[in-house]
């Protein structure tokens, strides 16, 4: 016992902290610690389309453009390009041409694909490799060919690019190339060399510039040039990973990205951890010298002009459960975190006036809170094909308007989101051109402007509209039958009951019965595809900050049932559609604003979406993290972040001193508990005869 005590005291004295999940050698190092919940499915820029994947791919791959890190509204700036390309119309506007000029001297990260001898590896050698980086490494300069190669990869029959359908509509020859490759690729070849196949609409001008020819006008194309779909991919990388034996080791381009960005993926274990290391060949990029109003006051311009990246390594650990994730953040083992809904009250307090702040516990740790409205909308949609709530008839329109007043989204946000949301007054998200704010921005059919803020209209007005729709007191005026509506939703378990009850109460306010058809995601999608839903809840996250990317969700040509598009409400309005066709190809201007205003008015009046909300993200970061600013459009944010590693190490030590007395107490209790047993045992052993 004494020896055990001495050992415990000795160990406690020697070790700094016992609960540090990272190697002792990394303490005090310039490493950023983060976590991921969902394992990425694809890291190939031609296939990757989710945020979970973008946080890795966008550190490695560099498309020609990027979003300015600090400025708002979001603004495109060059990344590898020399300037943001301008659209040049040719043949009387039949085609549009973008010429992209890239910087000279940009070099790829060190990679075995750039060493010729690594292209003829024996299968046995590959089988012995722990990582592709165990092989000799090389590099080369980035050229326009790499961008062209990637655009051709959109059409590859071996890959599944989610934007092939969309881009085939615009890039000249892309659809034809895809058809040609499909016929040609019998999978007999080991590697499909796309350099040998011409893409009519993409042309190399010289080693540092290329030209993309689009059908008609598509001003939103420049936004796509800021996404990894248009990042460069060296042909050598594809060829290297196509060698026999590579796939069996999970060495594929889909899992081992090769780029020119600030970081390179050096450890890829999506089951446990992913590690990015600074790309030694990165050219360096200056931190922005200007930003949005208030950025300087928040210290976001303190590093203006300094060469990025600031952090040497970024370690992502897999955390599938929110409790360990949150606790490790509080212990200082993650540098930043979102706030799980279970722990919201522990982290944030909302004053009577509605001001949001951190709890004293968080403030004492120096934790900082940043909030930002997501460029996302979640809405209660109506199926336009439904006989009761859908369609252009005045009766159903008034019914929708009545529901739009009755459903109190402010209350929903307060109860279920801890206030982390903004009521949507139109289909556009905050920060997107065309969305008006303040008095001009409210939906006058559902809200009034009173006391300097939007107030929901009284429910009596909803009842009056319902009566005008032919349902006085929630009953059909002709038949007397109660009005029963159906809401299709994707349930997540018993925890949904309060939310379902809330939905029923909203409709009960106007004496309408609501039946909730709770289903799984697959069946829900099937109903949407077939148009068999009545009311449903769905959302949209912006691809790029343009009103077209939201308003197309109500465009008739995109109707889900008719054309399998993104208009899940199957909403059709000839005027709206005509305005959309005009608006989508316009540059931001007063005229475009006027058209958008009219479209928003139509959408409010027709109400194919009966209101909704925009989530507001609450992010926490420790005091040792600098330059963190939420950016909903881009995920290439790691190069901007700076950390004070020494300060972090000191605070971690302070916060995580091992508490040994409970261990000693438990040991003492075990010993104390075994004494009576021992005494009893000895007594029995000494007994002359066994008890009967």
């Amino acid at each position, binding site marked *: 016992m004494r020896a055990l005590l001495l050992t415990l005291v000795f160990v406690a004295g020697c070790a700094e902290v016992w609960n540090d999940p990272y190697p002792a050698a990394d303490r005090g190092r310039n490493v950023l610690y983060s976590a991921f919940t969902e394992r990425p499915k694809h890291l190939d820029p031609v296939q990757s389309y989710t945020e979970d994947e973008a946080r890795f791919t966008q550190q490695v791959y560099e498309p020609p453009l990027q979003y300015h890190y600090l400025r708002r509204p979001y603004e495109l700036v060059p990344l590898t390009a020399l300037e943001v390309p301008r659209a040049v119309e040719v043949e009387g506007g039949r085609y549009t041409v973008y010429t992209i000029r890239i910087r000279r001297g940009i070099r790829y990260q060190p990679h075995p694909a750039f060493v010729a001898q690594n292209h003829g590896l024996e299968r046995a050698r590959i089988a012995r490799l722990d990582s592709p980086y165990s092989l000799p490494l090389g590099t080369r300069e980035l050229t326009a060919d790499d961008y062209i190669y990637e655009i051709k990869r959109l059409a590859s029959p071996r890959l599944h690019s989610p934007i092939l359908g969309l881009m085939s509509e615009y890039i000249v020859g892309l659809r034809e190339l895809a058809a040609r490759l499909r016929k040609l690729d019998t999978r007999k070849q080991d590697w499909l060399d796309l350099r040998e196949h011409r893409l009519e609409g993409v042309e190399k001008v010289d080693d540092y510039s290329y030209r993309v020819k689009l059908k008609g006008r598509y001003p939103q194309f420049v936004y796509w040039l800021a996404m990894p779909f248009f990042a460069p991919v060296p042909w050598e990388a594809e060829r290297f990973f196509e060698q026999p034996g590579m796939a*069996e080791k999970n060495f594929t381009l889909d899992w081992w990205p090769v780029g020119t960005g600030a970081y390179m993926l050096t450890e890829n274990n999506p089951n446990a951890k992913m590690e990015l290391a600074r790309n030694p060949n990165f050219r360096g990029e200056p931190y922005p010298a200007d930003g949005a109003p208030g950025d300087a006051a928040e210290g976001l311009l303190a590093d203006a002009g300094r060469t990025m990246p600031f952090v040497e390594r970024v370690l992502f650990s897999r955390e599938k459960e929110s409790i*360990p994730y949150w606790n490790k953040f509080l212990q200082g083992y993650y540098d930043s975190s979102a706030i799980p809904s279970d722990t919201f009250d522990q982290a944030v307090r909302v004053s009577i006036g509605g001001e949001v702040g951190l709890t004293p516990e968080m403030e004492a740790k120096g934790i900082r809170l940043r909030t930002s409205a997501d460029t996302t909308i979640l809405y209660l949609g109506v199926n336009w094909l439904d006989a009761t709530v859908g369609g252009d008839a005045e009766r159903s329109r008034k019914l929708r308007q009545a529901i739009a007043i009755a459903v109190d989204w402010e209350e929903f946000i307060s109860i279920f989101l801890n206030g982390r949301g903004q009521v949507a007054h139109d289909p556009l998200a905050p920060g997107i051109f065309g969305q008006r704010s303040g008095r001009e921005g409210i939906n006058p059919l559902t809200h009034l402007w009173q006391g300097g803020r939007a107030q929901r209209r009284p429910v009596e007005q909803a009842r009056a509209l319902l009566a005008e729709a032919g349902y006085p007191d929630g009953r059909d005026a002709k038949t007397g039958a109660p009005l029963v509506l159906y809401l299709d939703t994707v349930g997540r378990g018993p925890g949904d009951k309060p939310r379902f009850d809330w939905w029923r109460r909203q409709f009960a306010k106007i004496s309408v019965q609501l039946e909730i058809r709770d289903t799984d995601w697959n069946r829900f999608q099937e109903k949407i595809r077939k148009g068999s839903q009545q009311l449903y809840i769905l959302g949209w996250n912006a691809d790029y900050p343009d009103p077209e990317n939201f308003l197309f969700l109500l465009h008739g040509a995109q109707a889900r049932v008719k054309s399998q598009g993104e208009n899940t409400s199957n909403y059709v309005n000839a005027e709206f559609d005509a305005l959309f066709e005009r608006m989508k190809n316009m540059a931001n201007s007063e005229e475009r604003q006027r058209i958008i205003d009219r479209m928003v008015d139509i959408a409010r009046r027709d109400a194919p979406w009966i209101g909704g909300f925009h989530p507001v993200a609450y992010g926490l970061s420790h005091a040792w993290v600098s330059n963190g600013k939420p950016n909903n459009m881009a995920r290439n944010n790691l190069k901007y972040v700076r950390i004070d590693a020494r300060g972090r190490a000191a605070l971690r030590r302070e916060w995580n001193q091992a508490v040994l007395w409970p261990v000693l107490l438990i040991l003492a209790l075990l010993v104390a508990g075994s004494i009576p047993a021992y005494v009893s045992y000895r007594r029995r052993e000494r007994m002359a005869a066994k008890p009967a």
Partner: protein
Amino acid sequence: MLAYIVRRTLYAIPILVGINLFTFALFFLVNTPDDMARMQLGVKRVTPEAIQKWKADRGYDKPLLYNAGQDGVRSVSETIFFEKSLKLFAFDFGRAEDNRDIANEIRTRMGPSLALAVPVFLVGLAVNITFALGMAFFRATYLDFWGVILCVAMMSISSLFYIIGGQYLISKLWHLAPISGYEGGLDALKFLVMPVIIGIISSFGGSARFYRTVFLEEMGKDYVRTARAKGLAESVVMFRHVLKNGLIPVLTGVVVVIPTLFLGSLISESFFGIPGLGSYTIDAIQAQDFAVVRSMVFIGSALYIVGLLLTDISYTMVDPRVRFG
């Protein structure tokens, strides 16, 4: 014995085919190949052509069980079930829907699963048997009474509670171990201490109580009375006679579990961030990855059959009265 093993192995084949068919039916009852394609391709901008292409690339564009467009054997062989299932019997698991090699994943993840499951199994077994023997030794005393109360109380609590409570106390309040994570080699020890302790505690109540019942039943038999009548010390009676003979029913529950230790723990691995086969299976179910689900169910059932076979063999070793039929 060899003939017995061969016979049992041959029996296993129709069982595995049946399990495979059952898994297949269950999976495709709730997921269509279209659903799987959508899950992998995402929800944005997915065209019907893209879905068709995804299915064709992975062989999900064929009928599920019967191909009416083909004649003879091909009407069965040109189906998703046949093409996906046959290779399993050669332990060719193919690729997951995210294109990662399943065999490679299993090899990589087996280590962490075993690193957690083996200590929990061995130490847990030792602790539970010791405690159960103690309770049996002190039967009908207050030590036995409170021991049973403790067991009933502990078996009534959800294992999730032990995990969350353990993480809260051991890592959050006392800072004695990392709350989650995993590293290979010796570094794994600091990540495994807490899950192992919690794993042992969470299985303690039910197992110890069961073993106590087994030992008490054994203690009431004639040979124990004879041993006592011979004047043997109680400790000798307990450890040399009761423990040995009580092990036969214990083996039923224990040996069958040994091969399945490879499969890991579904809940513990998720909460403690251990990248084992348990969390792999959970991930696959959530991602509707039929290739992985099918492989894990196949391995699980095969290992379970091996476990049952080992149990039968072990019977003959510990009880000379049992012979292979």
